[in-house]
């Protein structure tokens, strides 16, 4: 069995784990955004979406546990890679200059990652681990986003998510070896497009609710 740990524990194996979990989060973001868009349909539509989602029952629990496992893998592997990379250059350069390869996304992956982790914990505590017996999810959301502070936190987090995704999406293709002259330019364009969709799609929701209130 040690061929599995040997392969996954190598630098390329760790990258593979980052890529596969990252891809899954991209899929999750797309599904989450699609669900959230029902908020534009009004209170009933949004509560209806939540009810349908929860009607999935055990399926939803499996999905949640899956996401939690993937999140742990992504965070722990990411942290291991970050620390390993720091160690790989013990004496830093006095003058640092990019040759033009790095992007805002690629250069800030660990930092936007930490912001996202903190945000996800905050977000789950706000909307997931709350008592929903005497209220609806729409009321909880509407109440939270009547507060300017919450709106700002969410916008900052969504900008971080967009930046993180702008590098993560195409980078995952490169990591699994899917670099092809016909498709790579498309992956890089889609990466930016997806980042914009995530940033504006999620980021505008708190503003919309704030303006509605």
């Amino acid at each position: 069995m040690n061929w599995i740990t040997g392969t996954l524990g190598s630098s390329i194996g760790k990258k593979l784990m980052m890529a596969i979990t990252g891809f899954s989060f991209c899929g999750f973001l797309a599904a989450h955004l699609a669900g959230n868009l029902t908020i534009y349909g009004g209170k009933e539509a949004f509560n209806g979406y939540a009810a349908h989602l929860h009607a999935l029952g055990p399926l939803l629990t499996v999905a949640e546990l899956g996401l939690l496992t993937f999140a742990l893998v992504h965070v722990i592997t990411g942290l291991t890679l970050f620390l390993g990379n720091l160690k790989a250059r013990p004496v830093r350069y006095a003058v640092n200059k990019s040759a033009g390869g790095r992007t805002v996304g690629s250069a800030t992956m660990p930092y936007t990652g930490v912001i996202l982790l903190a945000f996800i914990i905050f977000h789950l505590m706000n909307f997931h681990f709350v008592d929903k017996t005497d209220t609806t999810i729409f009321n909880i959301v509407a109440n939270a986003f009547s507060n300017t502070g919450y709106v700002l936190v969410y916008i900052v987090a969504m900008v971080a998510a967009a930046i993180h995704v702008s590098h993560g999406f195409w980078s995952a293709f490169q990591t699994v070896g899917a670099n092809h002259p016909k498709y790579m330019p498309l992956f890089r364009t889609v990466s930016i497009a997806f980042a914009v969709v995530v940033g504006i799609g999620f980021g505008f929701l708190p503003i919309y609710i704030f303006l509605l209130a």
Partner: protein
Amino acid sequence: MTKTINLTLKVWRQKGSKDKGRFDTYHAENISTDMSFLEMLDVVNDQLTIDGKEPIAFDHDCREGICGMCGCVVNGRAHGAEKGTTLCQLHMRHFNNGDTIAIEPFRAMAFKVIKDLAVDRSALDKIIQAGGYVSVNTGGAQDANAILVPQEVADLAMDAAQCIGCGACVASCPNASAMLFTSAKVSQLALLPQGKPEAAKRALNMVRTMDELGFGNCTNETECEAECPKEISITNIARLNREYLKAGFFSRSM
């Protein structure tokens, strides 16, 4: 009429691997713009020698951009800011009179400083050694077309084989990763039919050795591709990933 310029150099000086090292300032005067960067350092070293001071140690050999011996970080860029050139092919015409130039050695845990700007890049040799060896038989040459290789594939293999092992990819990588180097060495063989029988073993051993030597992990920053004097593409890194994962999960090699 030759144009000359005067420069201020901030050069990393370090007596040996145990020394902490520091920047020293030197003045390079009446430098012809036709000189290469290394020739400019030669002029500075001549003056240092005349003054009875220790000359600046730096690596170099062919001075034609094909041997891979030279290389320093000039103003934060490996081999300087010109695209697709080694340090020996960087000419002083790219600098202006009065410029201050910071010169540092390639920095990575796997590259120990030997002295000043000279670093020990034998870690790269160890990665190549881990890949095995090729036999070059003497005697009558085999018929040229006995093994068919499409021209396009041969070109890709030659593009990868352009790597001169200078270490600029490691030096310019924000993570000090040797993935571009390793990927070029794996690709040049994996692409050709002659390299196929040992492809799985080669990929596994070279990546393992690369990890053991203390290089960082590739995060697809693509700085290496932008800085490589031979303009080796990161498509080779994707190929290395494929070769390695294929070998790790599907080959019989352990």
